[in-house]
């Protein structure tokens, strides 16, 4: 089965195989990111701009803000979860408030 991923409702959430899996309004801790000078970046997800797949990873670029320094922008690709077995299509989300490293 092909894994189907997209953002909907003005970037409010990410759908994986027609199931709402990742929502805006969570805080993500980003390490080694170019987003701002904070270490780590305490990033509020305000909208999903783009989604992608790098099997088994489900990825997204997220618009939002560092709530420590106020820098606004869009992240590089972040892994938001995984679909390990495309046949089942089951999605395993990452834990947002653990540390994440965006792709360069």
């Amino acid at each position, binding site marked *: 089965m092909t894994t189907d991923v*997209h953002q909907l409702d*003005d970037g409010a*959430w990410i759908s994986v*195989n*027609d199931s709402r899996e990742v*929502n*805006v309004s969570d805080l993500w801790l980003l390490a080694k990111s170019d987003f701002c000078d904070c270490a780590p970046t305490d990033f509020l997800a*305000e909208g999903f701009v783009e989604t992608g797949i790098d099997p088994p990873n489900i990825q997204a670029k997220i618009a939002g803000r560092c709530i420590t320094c106020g820098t606004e922008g869009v992240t590089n690709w972040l892994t938001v979860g995984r679909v390990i077995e495309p046949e089942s299509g089951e999605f395993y989300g990452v834990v947002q408030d653990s540390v994440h490293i965006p792709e360069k």
Partner: protein
Amino acid sequence: MPTKVENWKDEVYGNEIRDHLMTFAEEGWDAIPEDEHDAWFERFKWWGLYHQRSGQESYFMMRIGTPNGVIEPGQLDVIAEVADKYARGPVDNPEFGDAYCDWTTRQSIQLHWIKIEDIPEIFDMLESVGLSTQQACGDSWRNIVGCPVAGKDTHEHIDAWPVAEDLHDTFKGDDDYANLPRKWKVSVTGCDQGCGQGDINDLAFEPAEKDGELGFNVRVGGGLARKEPRFARDIDVWVPTDRVDDMSAGMSALFREYGDREDRFNARIKFLMDEWGPEKMRSVLQEEFVDFELPSAGEDMRDQYTYNAGDNEHGDHVGVYEQPDGNYYVGLNVLVGRMGVDDVYELADLADEYGSGEVRLTQRQNIIVTDVDSDRLDAFLDEPLLEDYSPDPHPFMRGSIACTGTEFCSLSIVETKNRQVRYARWLTDNVSLPEGVEDFHIHLSGCTASCAQPQIADISLRGMKTRKDGEPVEAFDIGLGGGLGENPLFADWVEMRVAADEVPGYIDNLLDAFEAKRDGDETFRDFVADRDEATLQDLADPEETSYDDPYLGNTKMTWYPYAEDTDMQSSPAPTDADDQPLPSDD
């Protein structure tokens, strides 16, 4: 490459969605194929149904579009009946009870907790009195807004209600304009006060005179969403009343053909206006989309605009006003636009008893009872219901607007309506407004979509997060000094990431500073405009006060913020037609 949404729209969109909707309604929630949920929920919007947020699967928000906010005699009672019978969720709202109606900033009606199985009966009830959910959401002509007292206003130059009604009748259901790249918001104003809020619409008709004839100047490309606010721009066109349809057809066809279908974030016509500018917009319209010579703009009335202009003259339509026919309209304040269903029934009865039965919705989430006989005005004003929905409310009550928020909305970052109710009550009880300030707008929006129109308020609140004692809490960015009028201004964002429980203290401190430093009777808007951002930031600090905020944690993590057990796993959704949980696939 067209977006997935465009591909779904190519397959099924517009009027034909209704047949599918009725089939799903008959067969039940489970009949919607799981691997087609996203496509169908996107399509259902065209018929006014918006799937509620995560944790509330199988429940829908339903929007009823009432052009110009006009609710004709007999309609309000049916709206109450629909809410009473079908808009009841599994848990009560602590401020508003178990069934309620929301009056929106676009003069529409929103109901929540709607089940798809009930749609046929709901549509039958609504349509029996001429109401519809058609195109209330989705990528097409949305509800047409305007001066809510069009036809009943002493400041009026053109009765804009028949114009708006004709646009509604012409473009709702017309397949040629059913599938646009994105939403299409239209405003018609006939008065000299600017209360149609044309400046923040995709297409705006504003009163203007040309060669001694009254008609409309045309503006294009306004909108507030996504931190990309734009005021509509003058395209140097005037049209007589009988050309409004042709002009609208041409403009929305231009949007249909040239709007961006490859990037929904870039699809609104404001971005095409950015790219083209008003001169090219006009020339493409003339050359490709209308078959008559477009007259240049006439003399407008913008220098007379007082609506939300910052000077206390005409902030909204709340209050008692004489109509040209000698009757009165009475604008009632509805705090954050939400009204319990028993109150809606009672208001419908009062409108019948004292007026013509007609009521109208404003763009400030309030409701107006029209056609009140002058002999019975005092008796109407003595009705007990008006103690809760006052025509003479405290300015903090009158000026409070809030969007739907995390209670139901996927995009919102924070809780909104119940919080704004608590803000307004606390401010009323604890904060004095400087002398002469009788109109003060505080608009609270849960996210950047700006459904509460925060950028055009005295104080703009936009949902955010911050940390307090290391813990994430709901917060707001705070903007100051926005408004409409002849020279509209967007709010200047000056105080960022203020914890929600410190917002009332900030407003208190800010108003103290305003009172101490204002120049005579300087208005708040002028006070803000006269100061640079750094000075504004130094005016006041956020502060904890006696205000208590029960929604400080992450309400979006709950399945419903006011449930006894808010854990997402405790959600009953999805449910069947009788609100009973459906078996999980797990």
